[in-house]
């Protein structure tokens, strides 16, 4: 199986997309920073607010990127777009409507991995892309590009609490596989950090769930 596009064309599509939605990225970063602030200082409805930010980001990336410019070069993009919209609906239902999610700073491996995912999503992804020779507007940015959005979601869900939290990792986890495979096939190693961190996150989440069952959840 080959991809129908080259790395240069994928960069070009991302660049033209970023340029076309500017300055939405500023608003998106503002919302993500607000969500991070609510994780650091939780309030009564902060879980709903963080989930709303994530749901909005997934809906936007699904419709604005996958079903938009990405669909012009990739026949699989509509399927990815649909998956992103489903994730947005799930986050909105579980986190916003039912209020089943809470987010806070956590210690232990799960806290470190969650923090690393968030750091890479917000700062690391564009930085790695820049180190690989890409420049604005060809940079992946959180809440408007798929990879950092998936990674930020994984990080926040690792820092979360509540029933159904781990099942919300399924679609972001699958996306990291798709993205990792794409990076491998296109020969763009800087994008491989996503699946590597996702594997670490899955391991931390599994260990955390196991410890929780045994009554030793890290706090």
């Amino acid at each position, binding site marked *: 199986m*080959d*991809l*129908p*596009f*080259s790395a*240069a*064309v994928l960069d*070009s*599509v991302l*660049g*033209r997309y*970023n*340029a*076309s939605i*500017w300055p939405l990225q500023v608003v998106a970063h503002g919302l993500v920073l607000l969500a991070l602030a609510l994780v650091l200082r939780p309030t009564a409805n902060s879980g709903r607010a963080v989930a709303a930010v994530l749901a909005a980001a997934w809906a936007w990336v699904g419709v604005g990127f996958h079903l938009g*410019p990405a669909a*012009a*070069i*990739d*026949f699989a993009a509509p399927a990815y777009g649909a998956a992103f919209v489903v994730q947005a609906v799930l986050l909105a239902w579980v986190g916003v409507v039912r209020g089943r999610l809470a987010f806070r700073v956590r210690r232990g491996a799960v806290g470190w991995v969650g923090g690393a995912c968030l750091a890479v999503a917000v700062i690391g992804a564009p930085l790695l892309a820049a180190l690989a020779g890409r420049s604005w*507007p060809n940079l992946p940015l959180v809440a408007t590009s798929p990879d950092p959005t998936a990674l930020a979601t994984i990080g926040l869900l690792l820092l979360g609490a509540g029933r159904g939290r781990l099942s919300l990792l399924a679609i972001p986890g699958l996306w990291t596989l798709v993205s990792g495979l794409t990076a491998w096939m296109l020969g763009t190693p800087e994008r491989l950090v996503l699946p590597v961190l996702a594997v670490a996150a899955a391991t931390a989440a599994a260990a955390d769930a196991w410890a929780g069952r045994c009554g030793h959840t890290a706090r």
Partner: protein
Amino acid sequence: MPRFPNAIRRRTLLAGLAGAGAAAASWPIGAQTAPAISRALPATGERIPAIGLGTWITFNVGDDPALRDSRVEVMRAFFEMGGSVIDSSPMYGSSEAVIGDGLARIGTPRTLFAATKVWTWRQGAGPDQMAESRRLWGVRRFDAMQIHNLLGWEGHLETLLEDKAQGRIRLIGITTSHGRDHDTFATIMARQPIDLVQFTYNIIDREPEARLLPLAAERGLGVIVNRPFRQGDLIRRVSRHPLPAWAGEIDCRTWSQFLLKFIVSHPAVTCAIPATTRVDHLRENMGSRYGPLPDTAMRERMARHVRDL
């Protein structure tokens, strides 16, 4: 978005000129006057150049104006050098739109042999998809409409036979790649009223010599060969080594010409469709339409040489 279209065009132009100069060295002596290698399509008897232009990946550039400009230059050079067959598919993302853009900007040559594919599971979706392909290319009809990777082939064949009868297409084909589905493929070749086939064949992937190529010759089917360079892997592999001196006996100046002459020298092959993003590479590819073709002994020597590299 801060882009510099003039600078990009200038850079593209300079790169193109430099490439043209470099490629001139790979252009066989006397190529301007020698007859180019062409093959007759068994279904119609018309002769088409033995080297066409594939568009998988290479023409899927979205809306990027600089990349579109460079593909227009590839198409312009292709037609200037006597090219005719362009092959694409709805599966190739924006490739059909980019081809249509190029044809509109160059002016669609009368020599164009437009080949694309129908690529959908549902027979009912085929006509709309083919109409969309005509709109994207800007052509009234396709010379060849092929069923992509045999997807929903029974239903589409029914549609295509009707389209052919109504003059909406001239030729019906089927395609596969990577050596997939050869059993089903051969069965369709043997039993169905099609005009041409497209599959992978190159100096490494020689399986079609055993069955598909003889069957095509027996059934009077045109043969379009895809992945002649294994999507560039073959070129990258052989380019680490010098071209053997004896390649000059068949007027090969570059590895690409060596590999393409191997393919088009098979008597059952109608044309090969290498894909490229560069004018200099296109010129090299088109250069393989000139000079002598290898005979059976030379073909074996060529295959042995590549295998032993």
